[in-house]
């Protein structure tokens, strides 16, 4: 953290001080309700109300969307969101509830929306008053995203939408959805278009939202059904048939490779003391006894823990090397490994943590005796969301093999 601060420009240094001062005086403290691990698992209106109030106060202080233009509700700054994010983690704040909006919808609307739409939608997105969700995946379009079948048929200057979206996090609270759909059935990629759709006002009138329950038992994501929903043409982003290109802007930002930093906060509920998964794993191994001795003294476990430490360090240093062109043979080679590695390493670290816990790994969130409050079994199960979502690990390996190694395209 201090490394980063030492490289601040004068503008950034002043802004960092503003963040610190504000957070000192305005940290919301211990929440009145039990919070989930991330915004994607928000279940109750009480949780949402508390988190929305927090995002609004941070927005009012100029800490959300500060790198966006002022006329769309942003702060008109350059490379300052990163500073807020660092200070938010440092201050261990609650997270923001509108993560899909901030991370995916906002940059997409900014780069592809009409001026009037940006000015109308973005301020309430940044403030968290309007929660957003993402309508990409369908029962028949998972890894092969471009095969979406949700269809919009033109009717004058309106569109009539029919279809079925799945894995839609936050849809049960969302005012708005970013929606990838088909406007032409004869072309796979060029037949796609991209809309923003007000779904909350249409509940029961063309839109229905049903919860899907994850293997962890948590809710938070949903399926969304469209039946003859009428939408104005003004809600279309970019040109007709350009949906795939617009979706790439969304996905690039989702994978952390976009032009704009996503506003982030967090760290409050983290039961862990350390910044990395393996540091938490090491602490667990040192504090867990097996046969009367710390698990951390078992040579076989030590070897496997070190393997995870090395993989995690390798990923961290990959991210550093990705910014040093002289040490890259192919410009995207290291970057395109990011999501695959982060998710698989986290999964294997969590799996190893369960082995370290031994029989205690059977104890879940509701058990007072569960080590680390039952976070490791939860993290392990949730890790499969990461290796499946946003392109499964198998799809990631195809992408790497084809785009980086130049191997023939698999079917």
């Amino acid at each position: 953290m201090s490394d980063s601060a030492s490289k601040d420009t004068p503008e950034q240094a002043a802004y960092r001080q503003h963040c610190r001062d504000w957070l000192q005086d305005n940290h919301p403290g211990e929440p009145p309700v039990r919070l989930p691990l991330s915004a994607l698992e928000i279940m109750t209106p009480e949780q949402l109300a508390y988190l929305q109030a927090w995002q609004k106060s941070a927005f009012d202080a100029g800490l959300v969307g500060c790198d966006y233009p002022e006329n769309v509700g942003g702060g008109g700054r350059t490379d300052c969101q990163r500073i807020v994010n660092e200070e938010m983690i440092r201050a261990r704040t609650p997270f923001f509830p509108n993560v899909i909006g901030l991370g995916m919808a906002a940059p997409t609307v900014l780069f592809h929306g009409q001026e009037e739409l940006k000015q109308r939608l973005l301020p309430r997105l940044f403030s968290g008053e309007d929660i957003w969700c993402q309508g990409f995946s369908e029962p028949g379009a998972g890894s092969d995203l471009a095969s979406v079948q949700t269809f919009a048929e033109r009717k004058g200057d309106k569109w009539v939408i029919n279809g079925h979206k799945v894995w839609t996090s936050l849809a049960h609270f969302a005012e708005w959805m970013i929606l990838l759909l088909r406007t032409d059935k004869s072309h796979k990629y060029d037949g796609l278009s991209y809309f923003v759709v007000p779904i909350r006002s249409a509940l029961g009138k063309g839109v229905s939202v049903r919860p899907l329950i994850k293997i962890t038992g948590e809710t938070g994501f949903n399926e969304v059904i469209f039946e003859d929903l009428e939408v104005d043409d003004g809600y279309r982003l970019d040109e007709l048939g350009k949906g795939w290109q617009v979706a790439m802007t969304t996905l690039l930002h989702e994978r952390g490779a976009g032009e704009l930093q996503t506003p982030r906060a967090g760290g409050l509920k983290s039961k862990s003391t350390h910044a990395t998964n393996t540091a938490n794993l090491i602490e667990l191994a040192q504090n867990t006894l097996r046969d009367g001795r710390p698990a951390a003294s078992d040579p076989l476990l030590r070897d496997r823990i070190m393997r995870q430490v090395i993989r995690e360090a390798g990923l961290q240093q990959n991210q550093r090397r990705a910014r040093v062109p002289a040490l890259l043979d192919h410009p995207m080679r290291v970057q395109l490994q990011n999501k695959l590695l982060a998710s698989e390493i986290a999964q294997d670290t969590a799996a190893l943590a369960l082995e370290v816990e031994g029989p205690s790994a059977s104890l879940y969130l509701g058990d007072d005796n569960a080590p680390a409050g039952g976070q490791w079994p939860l993290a392990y199960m949730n890790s499969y969301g990461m290796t499946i979502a946003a392109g499964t690990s198998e799809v990631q390996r195809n992408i790497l093999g084809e785009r980086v190694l130049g191997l023939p395209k698999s079917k």
Partner: protein
Amino acid sequence: MTQPDNFGFGEEASLLKESARKFFADNFPCDRLHAMVAGDPNPERMSACHWDQSLWQQMVDLGWTVLAVPESAGGLGMPLVAVAGLVEELGRAAFPCPLLGTLNATYALAACGADGEAALAEIAAGLAASLAISDRDGSWAGGSTDVAAADGKLNGTAWFVQDARKVDRFLVAAQSAAGLSLYWVAADATGLSIMPDAIVDLTRDQAHIQFDNVEAQEVSNSGLAVLHQAMPAIWTMLAADIVGAAEWQLQTTVEYVTTRQQFEHPLGFFQAVKHPLVDVMIQIDECKSLVYTAACAIDCEPEKAVQYAHMAKASASDTAAFASGRSVQCHGGIGFTWECFVHLYFKRQKHSQLLWGDAAWHRAQLATILLGDAA
């Protein structure tokens, strides 16, 4: 101390790496390597030492052996990351020469202080060297040695000496009255016998060295401390060699599976072939990032140097094994033959994987740093 964002890999380092790549590509393509070292497939062949001395002399003239020698001793004092870039290219070419040994001796001598300066000056003048510090079991870390020193004379045997027949000097670890001490010995000294080993790797030579009352110049009487200080650089350079060799294995195998057709498709069309090759790339990239981190740490963040160097060599040993296995397997039947070049790298990598500590050993050392002692 903190590391610079770019690992300290600047313009000069880039130019050095590029020129090394071009040097080996122009002068030593793989068919030359094969023609030079793979003449005798007999598994019971006697030990050989095939190399291109005139190309080595060109490397010496280019100053590549003095890059790591401190400026105070007449060298160039280049940062470790720059040298790692050169060594990566050396590994890509699997070029038989004593560069690694000479670098290893350089790093150890630089840790000897004033007593090492005369020896460093010899390296600066163009002499090649190798470490003779392992016992019969291949151990060096605990300071065990099968060589004894008394009255300035060495007696005993040093084992697993790399590129022994290509060098002018040995840096020898011997047990003396003061503990483990280091000695600088001429390869042609009276009483010194180089006993070549018959090894699998065709791109190196290796020997055990017998000392019979050999006169030697002591360069340090705290040998263990010197070796501990030099080892991170030694592991890191070998890991850099492995990275380069693994890149060759990956690239060569990708080319093969793109051309070779079975079941009406190039092999690389099939995910059973494609995905393991992606995993090889991922393993190489982990290793490469850790090599440059370790090299940078030795210069800029010494308190983390040992830790990162253990990570780099652990990762490199795994990379060597995995990339080698996949390179032969994905070449299919032809990959199992002597005529296909992949066996040269397969063997070099197996040798490198096990030299100066394998992956499990380095992870065990890392665990001691991060977790304390084992049960």
